[in-house]
């Protein structure tokens, strides 16, 4: 067991409908390290993130988070260490404020409620206008939703952030704000997925996944 790894993946194998998506993928990410997965469409980048969250159950291999094996039993409290920012996040309904407050109603996050006082600070940091809080979340642009999702992750005190194409919908200034934030936070482990790794300048390692094909990424849910 490796106690110092925030994320440790050993020989992960995943197939969808008989098509192998990941064939023995391994990765070790120490606490505070930032890495980017890259590769062609269908090479399984997003699938790696979904496996870490327990949304896809791999056919083989093992995942450890903070030294603890991911199992049906442990996944529930291990998710409390993780945050996932999707390419086009679906944050539920209601206003942006509702979306930010909702997770604090969950039993697991009840003790973190005071963090909500820092919303303004993080909105400023990520170049989000304060007036956005009253807006319906479904009216936000992709880039705004991503930044709201990142603010939510930080408010929930998550130390392992999984970013899926998070720079794709951002303008230059917002992308830089996010990069500056993650660069300044040595305590956060970030595993990101990107077609265009140049946009994620805070990332220390680039890991290229083999396989896949050229063209658009298909929607793979399970």
């Amino acid at each position: 067991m490796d106690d110092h790894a925030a994320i440790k993946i050993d020989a992960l194998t995943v197939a969808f409908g008989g098509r192998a998506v990941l064939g023995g993928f391994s990765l070790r990410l120490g606490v505070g390290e930032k890495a980017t997965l890259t590769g062609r469409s269908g090479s399984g980048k997003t699938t790696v993130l979904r496996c870490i969250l327990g949304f896809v159950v791999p056919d083989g291999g093992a995942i450890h988070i903070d030294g603890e094996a991911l199992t049906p039993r442990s996944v529930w409290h291990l998710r409390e260490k993780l945050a996932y920012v999707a390419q086009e996040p679906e944050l539920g309904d209601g206003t942006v404020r509702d979306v930010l407050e909702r997770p604090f109603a969950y039993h697991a996050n009840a003790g973190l409620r005071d963090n909500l006082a820092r919303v303004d600070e993080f909105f400023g940091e990520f170049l989000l206008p304060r007036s956005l809080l009253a807006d319906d979340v479904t009216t936000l642009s992709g880039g705004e939703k991503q930044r709201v999702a990142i603010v939510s992750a930080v408010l929930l005190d998550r130390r392992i952030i999984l970013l899926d194409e998070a720079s794709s919908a951002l303008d230059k200034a917002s992308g830089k704000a996010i990069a500056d934030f993650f660069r300044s936070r040595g305590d956060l482990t970030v595993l990101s997925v990107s077609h265009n790794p140049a946009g994620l300048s805070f990332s220390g390692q680039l890991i290229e996944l083999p396989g896949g094909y050229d063209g658009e990424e298909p929607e793979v849910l399970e």
Partner: protein
Amino acid sequence: MILADTMDIGYPSLALGYALLIIPLGLMLWHRIPIVGRTLIAVARMTVQLLFVGLYLQFVFQLNSPWLNAAWLVVMLVVADFSIVRGCGLRLGRFLAPVLAGLFVGTIVPLLFFLGLILRQPNLLEAQYAIPIAGMILGNCLRADIVGLGSFYESIRKSEKAYLHSLAQGARLNEAVRPFYRDAVTAALAPTVATIATIGLVALPGMMTGVILGGADPMTAIKYQIAIMIAILAGTAITVVLGIWLTTRQTFTAYGTLDHAIFKKVKPRGTRGTRGR
């Protein structure tokens, strides 16, 4: 107070009743509304089904055996169970047992309450009361359960990303399904609540009409109607809440994701009528 016996309709007179069909069928043909065939089949089905049930109920009422009455109730529950699971487009295997359990409790509890405490029937399974009242409660439970279960699973499937997002934020299974559960129960119970609110103003309900036609005083009919509406509301609430709660134990994976194997595979568009598989 009994005013009069119900006047029977003779078979020749009933046959004359079918003559009224000339008006809707004529209108459909005239305006080329393409449901003539469907209407004729529906009328034929109604006739056969009701004749069959009438004959059967005559037999059940004559014998009036508690065992036979109970067996008839079980048949009604099982038929309703199958039509709910089929009506939701869900796979039978994992749903029949929990849905039946919900239906059973949702029908039996208000039925026994109605018969035992309100009507104070010495014989709880008296055919004349037990079967029609159970039928009214069950019919409403069936409709509510199709809406409730169907919208619960369909809305999680449609909003799966938002559902997974809440899991990723640390929600336990019961916390993650709660908004979907609330919406589904609301959708299932709203028609019953709306019916209760407008009853008597928009339409004279079936049971009241039946009791009045049966020769009873309108006030008696109203008292029956109030009691049955409350029994229906209680029954639908129990059935839908229990149905969703009991099925969620078998429809999510150990990791909290929705098991898509619960949905019946839908044929892709354009393959209708083709043979194979």
